């Protein structure tokens, strides 16, 4: 909201208070000032000139050469193109060096051979209006040589107040309200304003019928003898200062009343209304009306209408109708000043996307005592400008309203306690009094009368009064205090501990980079993954088309940027800790099941022929995940070939880790489904070996913990034995490991696979596995004899598997 400093000073004496000071004080006590700007700064540079002579330009038909007294020695010669320039006029002159709006710098220049020392300005050149068909003619009394702003007394400052900080203050949506705050801050009284209804005739009052509770009060005042005219300068300048374009007296006055005392109002051309009077009712389904902006509006039964007889003439509190608006020929007016239900106005205006100055005010719950005062104020102002205006009848005051003014008990000790400052009773009473509250001392505090403008919504409980005292007292005057309490360590939060360890492990030794993705997932991405038809929590008003779904899982988000990352890097390692939502598992309150997940992606060029057997992404990521579970102190899970896999997983190269007593797999680890690679741009140069994993934190929290007992350091040296085994491709390596353990008869301390080979030398359909085996005893030093026994038993066991020992050495 824009507020004019000069306008404020009509209501409260601002002597000695600079605009900057005022803004700081408003910010610290009332509402955030977002900006302070000088009104039309160029009006302080442009000076008043008097046209002494006007002659035709010798070389151009449409130009005149004017001699203008600008109060500085010799009169200036100025070439002017406007048809209305005339001798004896007072005009606005921009002298060389002046910068006009649009960064337009005035220079001394030759125009068709005549040197022009400046420019006589039009209204539009000074950005004060649209009229550009002639120069701006100033009033005769303007003093020559003085800056125009001073000569006209329109020097002003425009203050912008953050609307959000006024949401709860219906009383501050006009200059008088803000002036009231300044009065309280500076202890200065408001200038009195007369709200008494002028004399009126005895005609039958205008008929008004209210059929809806959404209108609690409707004041209708017929006005005769008004005529269209340009508003007087004082009014125009005030409107201009806050960025309102002056239009015509009746429109300007209606706006002025709203901007001055915060009460919206509407003027109808009475001749265009039916004799049946005004009916206020809810719209019926399918009804339409054309609003002032020319739009045809489709209405709903929740919209409140002002009707002339049955015909809608205004969307209550939002905008008038095209059919009944005042025009140049309007003589008989009907002034509407009403109180409409905040919610009704808000709902309709947001549904129609039609926010107006009026609706913004009604939404805040306006004071129902205002309409009659505002009607009187309007009538008085109009009569001051057009004395012939008369009121044929008494105003109609319809509706069932009650004065919201009420009384609250304020325990002054509560004020001191909540603010943490020993403010004496007298000071509390004084502050409240300055703010317009009626204060009466009672036992341990005050009975506080809340005046109607503050009582509609804002000040309803004792605590609200604490704020009133605090903000005027100034929070800056309250010294900080240290809280004292028994500080106990918070209960352990295992999930948080897990998350931190996982992040540290991944970003550390596993050198993964952490990403945080959006919770919304693109339809395009889901479509690619074939996940579009899964149930998702969806928002009805997405920020972008095709982004209405809340993710179930983290992995898809990690896949989305893979192509860009791979283009730059051969080794992409990303993880994210985040949440997924499953709407099909909602609880009885309707909350979807929340999953806490960790997603990982590892992508690199496919390993070359010379690469070691464990260089592929899957094996690497398997290692990372296993290490992670170990680092969390969990028992090793049961790994098995994946089933019921998500669509991103390779159907035949996937593993699931499970823990007892938890249905959901703790880890799903897989290569990317091969068919998806092209869709993610991972073909040609970017062909990649992509391994993915999703870890369920919920499952990990349920997992059994590994003991953390120390293992004694072996007392006797062990023997290292390397074995290489050739076996059918489909025989699992686990069976070899089993045989090693069995053959060792309790002496196998460690087994490490160090080679996996498939090739012609060992025959088709066969593979070779090579292991380092450590044999160790707790009671003696093992010897060559033990090694030979081990190898012999091992070879026998391999025979049962259809495998051969290709070599064994210590």
């Amino acid at each position, binding site marked *: 909201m824009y507020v004019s400093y000069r306008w404020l000073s009509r209501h409260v004496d601002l002597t000695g208070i600079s605009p900057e000071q005022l803004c700081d004080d408003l910010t*610290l*006590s009332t*509402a955030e000032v977002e900006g302070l700007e000088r009104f039309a700064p160029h009006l302080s540079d442009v000076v008043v000139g008097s046209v002494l002579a006007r002659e035709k330009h010798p070389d151009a038909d449409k130009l005149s050469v004017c001699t203008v007294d600008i109060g500085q020695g010799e009169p200036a010669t100025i070439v002017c193109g406007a048809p209305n320039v005339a001798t004896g006029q007072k005009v606005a002159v921009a002298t060389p060096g002046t910068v006009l709006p649009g960064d337009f710098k005035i220079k001394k220049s030759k125009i068709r051979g005549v040197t022009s020392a400046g420019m006589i300005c039009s209204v539009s050149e000074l950005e004060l209006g649209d009229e550009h068909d002639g120069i701006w003619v100033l009033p005769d009394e303007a003093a020559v040589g003085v800056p125009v702003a001073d000569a006209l007394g329109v020097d002003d400052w425009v203050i912008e107040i953050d609307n*959000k*900080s006024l*949401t*709860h203050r219906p009383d501050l949506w006009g200059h008088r309200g803000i002036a009231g705050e300044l009065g309280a801050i500076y202890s200065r009284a408001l200038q009195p304003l007369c709200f008494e209804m002028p004399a009126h005739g005895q005609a039958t009052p205008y008929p008004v019928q209210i059929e809806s509770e959404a209108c609690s009060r409707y004041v209708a005042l017929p006005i005769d003898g008004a005529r269209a005219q340009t508003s007087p300068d004082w009014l125009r300048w005030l409107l201009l200062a806050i960025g309102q374009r002056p239009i015509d007296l009746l429109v300007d006055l209606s706006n002025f009343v709203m901007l001055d005392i915060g009460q919206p109002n509407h003027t109808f051309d009475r001749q265009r209304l039916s004799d049946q009077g005004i009916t206020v009712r809810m719209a019926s389904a399918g009804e339409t009306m054309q609003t002032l902006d020319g739009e045809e509006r489709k209405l709903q039964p929740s919209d409140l209408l002002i009707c002339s007889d049955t015909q809608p003439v205004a969307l209550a509190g939002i905008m008038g109708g095209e059919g009944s608006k005042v025009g140049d020929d309007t003589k008989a007016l009907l002034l509407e000043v009403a109180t409409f239900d*905040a919610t009704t106005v*808000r*709902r309709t205006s947001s549904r129609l996307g039609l926010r107006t100055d009026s609706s913004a005010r009604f*939404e*805040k719950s306006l004071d129902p005592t205002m309409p009659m005062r505002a009607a009187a104020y309007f009538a008085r102002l109009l009569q001051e400008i057009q004395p012939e205006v008369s009121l044929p009848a008494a105003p109609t005051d319809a509706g069932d309203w009650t004065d919201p003014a009420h009384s609250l008990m304020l325990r002054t000790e509560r004020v001191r*306690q909540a*603010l*943490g*400052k020993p403010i004496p009773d007298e000071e509390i009473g004084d502050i409240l009094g300055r703010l317009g509250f009626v204060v009466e001392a009672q036992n341990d505090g005050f009975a506080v009368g809340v005046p109607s403008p503050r009582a509609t919504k804002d000040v309803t*409980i004792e*605590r609200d009064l*604490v704020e009133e005292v*605090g*903000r005027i007292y100034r*929070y*800056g005057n*309250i*010294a*900080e*205090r*240290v*809280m004292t309490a028994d*500080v106990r360590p918070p*209960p352990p*939060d295992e*999930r*948080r501990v897990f998350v931190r360890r996982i*992040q540290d492990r*991944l*970003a550390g030794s*596993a*050198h993964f*980079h*952490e*990403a945080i993705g*959006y*919770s919304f997932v693109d339809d395009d991405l889901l479509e690619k993954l074939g996940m579009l038809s899964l149930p998702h*929590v*969806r*928002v*009805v*008003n*997405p920020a972008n088309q095709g982004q209405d779904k809340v993710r179930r899982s983290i992995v898809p988000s*990690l896949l*989305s*940027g893979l192509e*860009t*990352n791979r283009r730059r890097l051969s080794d*992409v390692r*990303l993880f994210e800790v985040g949440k997924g*939502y499953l709407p099909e598992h909602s609880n009885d309150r*309707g909350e979807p099941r*929340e999953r806490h997940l960790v997603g990982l992606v590892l992508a690199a060029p496919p390993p070359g022929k010379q690469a070691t057997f464990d260089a592929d992404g899957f094996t690497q990521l398997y290692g990372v995940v296993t290490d992670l579970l170990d680092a969390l102190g969990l028992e090793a899970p049961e790994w098995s070939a994946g089933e019921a896999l998500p669509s991103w997983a390779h159907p035949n190269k996937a593993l699931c880790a499970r823990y007892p007593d938890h249905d959901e797999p703790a880890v799903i680890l897989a290569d990317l489904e091969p068919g998806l690679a092209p869709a993610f741009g991972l073909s040609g140069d970017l062909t990649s070996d992509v391994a993915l994993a999703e870890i369920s934190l919920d499952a990990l929290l349920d997992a059994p913990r590994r003991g953390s007992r120390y293992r004694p350091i072996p007392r006797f040296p062990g023997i290292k034995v390397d074995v290489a085994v050739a076996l059918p491709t489909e025989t699992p390596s686990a069976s070899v490991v089993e045989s090693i353990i069995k053959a060792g008869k309790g002496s196998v301390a460690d087994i490490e696979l160090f080679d996996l080979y498939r090739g012609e030398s060992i025959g088709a359909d066969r593979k070779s596995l090579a292991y380092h085996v450590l044999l160790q005893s707790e009671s003696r030093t093992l010897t060559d004899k033990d090694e030979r026994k081990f190898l012999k038993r091992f070879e026998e066991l391999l025979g049962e598997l259809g495998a051969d020992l290709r070599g064994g050495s210590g």
Partner: protein
Amino acid sequence: MSQDLEATLAEAKQKILACESAHALKDIERIYVGKKGVVAGLLAKIPGLPAAQRRDAGKTANQLKQAVLQAVTARQGELASSEIEAQRSGAGFDATLPPGRTVRGSLHPITQVTRELEDLFQSMGYQVLDGPEVELDYYNFEALNIPANHPARDSHDTFFCEGDGHLVMRTHTSPVQVRAMERLEPPYRIVVPGKCFRQETTDASHDHTFHQMEGLVVDKDISVAHLIGAMKTLLRGIFGRDLEVRLRPGYFPFVEPGFELDARCPFCDSGCSVCKRTTWIELLPCGLVHPNVLRAGGLDPDEWGGFAFGLGLSRLVMLRHGIDDVRHLLGCDLRFLEQF
């Protein structure tokens, strides 16, 4: 020792001194004192000597051996120290060659700042809580004293979820206030980091998803003075020094009185682009918990009070690293992520 042997020793010493490598030195040593060396030759001859000479011959052969070995050891020492000298000269060292590359991962800057704050708060007895991103309308609005049709709802630019309208994407971390009150026994202090959502047009300074940290203290006899103290401590923790602060009225329906806390811009003295030339930066909306919110959480406002605050984590991260486009934060572009 005979003259012959004297000459042999002199010759050996000369060779040893002239020797430039440990390897060559070994060879020389072998020639003189090896199994088939000069000394061995002398000793081999002893049995053929008259008995009276044997004793002396053995003695002189041994003297020769000792003398050669001594010379070799001395030369070995010299060679070793000249080797160290040579290493020490560092010939070929280029001080401008780059350091070796280490492979590393990274934590997201939001994670980093969240952790710092969690640690700071935990050290002051706060408990870290979590809340859902898909939230009930009740906790996001209703319980926070923002009933249906309250005008403050408009400014929240809420993403509404499909269904009967009781689910929203939480617009702030504040819903955890009442969730916490329902669960915990007062007094308590909590912070809640997490994602929030606002349906607004995305640009360099606005994203529809951002991170916040909520704080809530519930205790007896909590005042604005305590709030100011706690916020100053918090800022000291964040910026590592004392910043002048000011508290001004701010309207949030779930606090009363409500404030905006501004801090003196830590990046300038006289106005910069961060503080929009005002020298103040708006950092923390805060206030005393509204009695209605305490009631919604099952607490008696005459017995319990508290304060609450909200910290913009995304904004803090941007300030800290000078990030000029909020959209970099969320997503998986490694060009951004690997910098942290």
